[in-house]
């Protein structure tokens, strides 16, 4: 009994570095405030207030992040739970920027007759009277804004988590809102709900794997903190079966979020069913957070065990590149195609990750793996959100016309839109003078610098296969005659216009003058422990 009653004098309050953690806290506070807004404000006011709250909080958090990138101090905050280091700040900034664009896309109402892309009343049975009523009354779920903010906060935490428990909590914080958001599509609700269900079930499985891995690692090393694990590992003697199993299970959980093969099965379904703005958000932001988390866990905690995990990641990287590019060829739906493309991109990213060109493995010159991964994530994120924003604009009576056969001859109907989409596709294919080329260059260089040159060769060959299906879409749009009842191109509101233009601008600028962002990524340096 006495053990439970800790004398007050012995209790020391945990030291929280509020200044350094401000971006994270701002986003979480805004998310909580968003819940209160839902509870207390009348319905008509909610949309503008939620939108303003989200935008302001993201902008302020972004500003604070930029400010803290300026001064050089990097620290482990919150009693060792969160690492506010260069890569974390870089990822935060990227996440906040891309989320801002995503939130704008969520708020877009003008492409679908004054309604957002989200279901009016998610609880109503699809096709039922209640649903029609909700649509007629123009009911909206403004809860999507706080949900998104929670997801963003979770992603930021995930990228900075310095112990395995924080990592797991962050994973759940950003996953649960995403499961919900996936199921909230206004059009094709059954598909949307199915995607949410699949994503949730598989996501829950992967969380279980992750948790099991954490347990094994804890059992082996006796600590949760990443730095502590790294310190404990060299002193271990005897069988390391538990370590290997733990690393494997952890990898499964993390690679699931990255959507690496063979843990990718959810990606096409979730991407296709989710409302397109959410798809863009998931494709860009989830991947960024997941890669940051993956790299942190494996570089910081298991950096010394590189030779144990890198063969596994080699195989996964090759599989991911190959399956992503080859299966994409047969896709007939734009969103599914982009999903497979995002899988292939995960593979390209993994090459840089597994190359591990960093101080710890004796590489002192040239491009580092972290720099490469960070740059790639920025370039890929902007292009992806831009591309999905274009997808929201090609519509017919049933909502978005995502089947590729509906995109035939789009170049005749709307040369500008088709041209922009073609440009994004060329960027994904890695054609020079787009961000796709510089980013591909930089990841392959990091891979080769780390000695993984066979992966580079596989990577360029997969790029060729990938180029084939991107070009196929360009051929469809430009070289084929439009069918009589082709899709309409909706007039975008300012939100979508901003999203597309920012994606386009970033893709051009990062393709021609990538220097500044590359330097920024280089300055982010490596993880601290």
């Amino acid at each position, binding site marked *: 009994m006495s053990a439970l009653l800790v004398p007050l004098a012995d209790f020391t309050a945990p030291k929280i570095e509020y200044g350094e953690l401000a971006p994270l806290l701002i986003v979480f506070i805004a998310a909580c405030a968003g819940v209160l807004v839902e509870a207390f404000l009348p319905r008509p006011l909610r949309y503008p207030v939620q939108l303003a709250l989200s935008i302001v909080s993201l902008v302020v958090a972004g500003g604070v992040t930029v400010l803290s990138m300026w001064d050089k101090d990097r620290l482990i905050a919150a009693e060792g739970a969160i690492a506010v280091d260069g890569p974390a700040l870089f990822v935060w900034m990227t996440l906040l920027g891309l989320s801002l664009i995503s939130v704008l896309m969520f708020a877009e109402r003008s492409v679908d007759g004054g309604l957002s892309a989200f279901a009016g009343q998610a609880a109503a049975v699809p096709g039922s009277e209640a649903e029609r009523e909700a649509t007629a009354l123009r009911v909206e779920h403004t809860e999507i804004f706080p949900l998104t903010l929670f997801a963003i906060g979770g992603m930021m935490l995930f990228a900075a988590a310095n112990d395995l428990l924080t990592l797991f909590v962050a994973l759940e914080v950003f996953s649960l809102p995403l499961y919900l958001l996936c199921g909230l599509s206004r059009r094709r609700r059954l598909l949307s709900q199915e995607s949410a269900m699949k994503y949730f079930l598989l996501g829950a499985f992967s969380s279980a794997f992750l948790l099991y891995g954490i347990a094994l690692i804890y059992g082996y090393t006796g600590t949760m903190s990443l730095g502590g694990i790294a310190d404990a590992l060299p002193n271990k003697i005897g069988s390391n079966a538990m370590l290997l199993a733990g690393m494997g299970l952890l990898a499964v959980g993390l690679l699931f979020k990255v959507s690496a093969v063979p843990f990718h099965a959810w990606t096409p379904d979730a991407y296709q069913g989710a409302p397109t703005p959410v798809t863009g958000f998931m494709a860009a932001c989830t991947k960024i957070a997941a890669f940051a988390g993956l790299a942190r866990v494996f570089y910081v905690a298991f950096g010394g065990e590189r030779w144990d995990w890198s063969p596994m990641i080699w195989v996964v990287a090759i599989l991911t590149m190959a399956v992503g590019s080859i299966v994409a060829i047969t896709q007939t739906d734009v969103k599914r195609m982009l999903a497979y493309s995002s899988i292939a991109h995960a593979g390209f990213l993994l090459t840089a990750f597994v190359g591990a060109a960093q101080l710890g493995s004796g590489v002192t010159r040239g491009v580092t793996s972290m720099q490469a991964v960070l740059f790639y994530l920025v370039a890929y994120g902007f292009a992806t959100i831009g591309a999905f924003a274009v997808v929201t604009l090609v519509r017919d009576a049933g909502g978005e016309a995502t089947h590729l056969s509906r995109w035939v001859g789009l170049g005749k109907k709307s040369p500008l839109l088709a041209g922009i989409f073609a440009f994004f596709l*060329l960027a994904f294919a890695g054609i020079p003078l787009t961000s796709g080329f510089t980013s591909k260059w930089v990841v*392959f260089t990091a891979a*080769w610098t780390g000695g993984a040159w066979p992966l580079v060769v596989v990577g360029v060959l997969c790029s060729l296969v990938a180029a084939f299906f991107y070009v196929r879409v360009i051929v469809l749009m430009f*070289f084929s005659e439009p069918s009589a009842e082709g899709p309409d191109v909706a007039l975008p509101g300012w939100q979508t216009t901003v999203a597309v233009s920012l994606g386009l601008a970033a893709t051009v600028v990062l393709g021609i003058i990538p*220097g500044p962002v*590359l*330097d920024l990524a280089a300055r982010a340096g490596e993880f601290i422990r």
Partner: protein
Amino acid sequence: MNFPWLTVCLLLPLVGALAVMLVPKASARTAKRVALGFAVVTFVLVAIVAIGFKADGPEPYAEDHTWIAAFGAHYALGLDGIGIVLIVLTALLTPVVLVASWHDARGGRWSERSFFAWILALEALSIGVFAAVDVFLFYVLFEATLIPMYFLIGGFGGAQRSYAAVKFLLYSLLGGLLMLASVIGLYVVSAQEGPPSYLISDLAQLDMGTNTERWLMLGFLFAFAVKAPMVPFHTWLPDAAAEATPGTSVLLVGILDKIGTFGMLRYCLGVFPNASEWATPVVLALALVSVLYGALLAIGQTDIKRLIAYTSISHFGFIVMGIYALTSQGMTGSTLYMFNHGLSTAALFIVAGYLISRHGSARIADYGGVEKVAPVLAGTFLFAGLSSLSLPGLSPFISEFMVVAGTFSRHKEIAVIAVLGVVLAALYILIMYQRLMTGPLENDRLARMPDLRFRERLAIAPLILLIIGLGFYPKPVVDVIKPAVEATMTQVGVTDPEPEIPVTEGER
């Protein structure tokens, strides 16, 4: 700082392309005139640069700015004797093609102005490719040329244009991406030795391991072999050339494919000298196969444009052979060959285009007796054909002679076999001429075929003049090329073999 002449030469057509796109769609005539104006001004500018170019003096046109410091990439342009010849060729062929294909874009998928704009964009990128002295910049421009060419083939060609355009693109990308792997490898090697740099001058100093150098060289060589194209990576060319408009084919074969042979000379030999020397036997064998196989297939073709495409494969075999013979005569001959082949193939494609546009068919069997109704057309066609088969007195003869002679001094057997290609060339050209132009008129529609119009004669005239002029007096061009070739020879570390003149009793 000097005036950035090369940048201006590069930007001018690009500005022209944008200007053409700004002209309203309805006034296609104005757009075409604007395009032609830009092409002509570019040519004048390039001519000024070429006149100011001193082959063995200091380099007045070099530009060097750091572009992406982290990659070691520079925006660096410069000229040597090989680059300037190809830049002049590019600037010359572009206005010629514009005039020759004045109406060719009418049946296209898009407006006529976009055809002209794409051509100007292609010109800009090609000039950049030939002027770049930084591997990264070269690679970026090399890949970027694919985009205008892809749209030129896919947008304005014949019935199978989409197929041909995609095939062209995928072949080129395959080569380009393998080269990308090598480009990345170069960075890694360069970064290990010091601050990374992609400047050719820095890379040439690198000390690579033997195996590394060989693998990296193979990546480059493969890309260039696809581009050139050499057998067995050639199958995209006949499709592309046959489906594209004649003007596009001229640019494709006359300029774009030259990047392949140019790249072998500047990059394979310049950056990987030892590995290139190691690879000579295989490359020479492939070149020989290209010479003979291209010529044999050309004889068997039933489509005029495909036939010309195969003749080019044979010619590119000669060019590659001259480069990899590693003699100064062979390399000089090859560079001259690139220029002359540009002229003669352009003339051949353009006149063939005139013929095809009159009758609406590219099948050789649909013609006969054209010389009776259109003597000037038939005459220019014969002239272009004779220049293509290297008739003495016309410029291609000199370069072909130099290539064969240069090869002979090191590899007798190869040169002897390659001469068969010259004989086959006479066969494919003369048989084609005979079937198309001589004999009775095939049908009534042929009888009404008009002869060449003023515009068409205007387009072809400069080519004919140059072919004759350089046929008698190639010295100015050779003098420009020679120092660059000698520099390459030094870099590779080879010297011309000593001539084996039998010493007779009397002289002893």
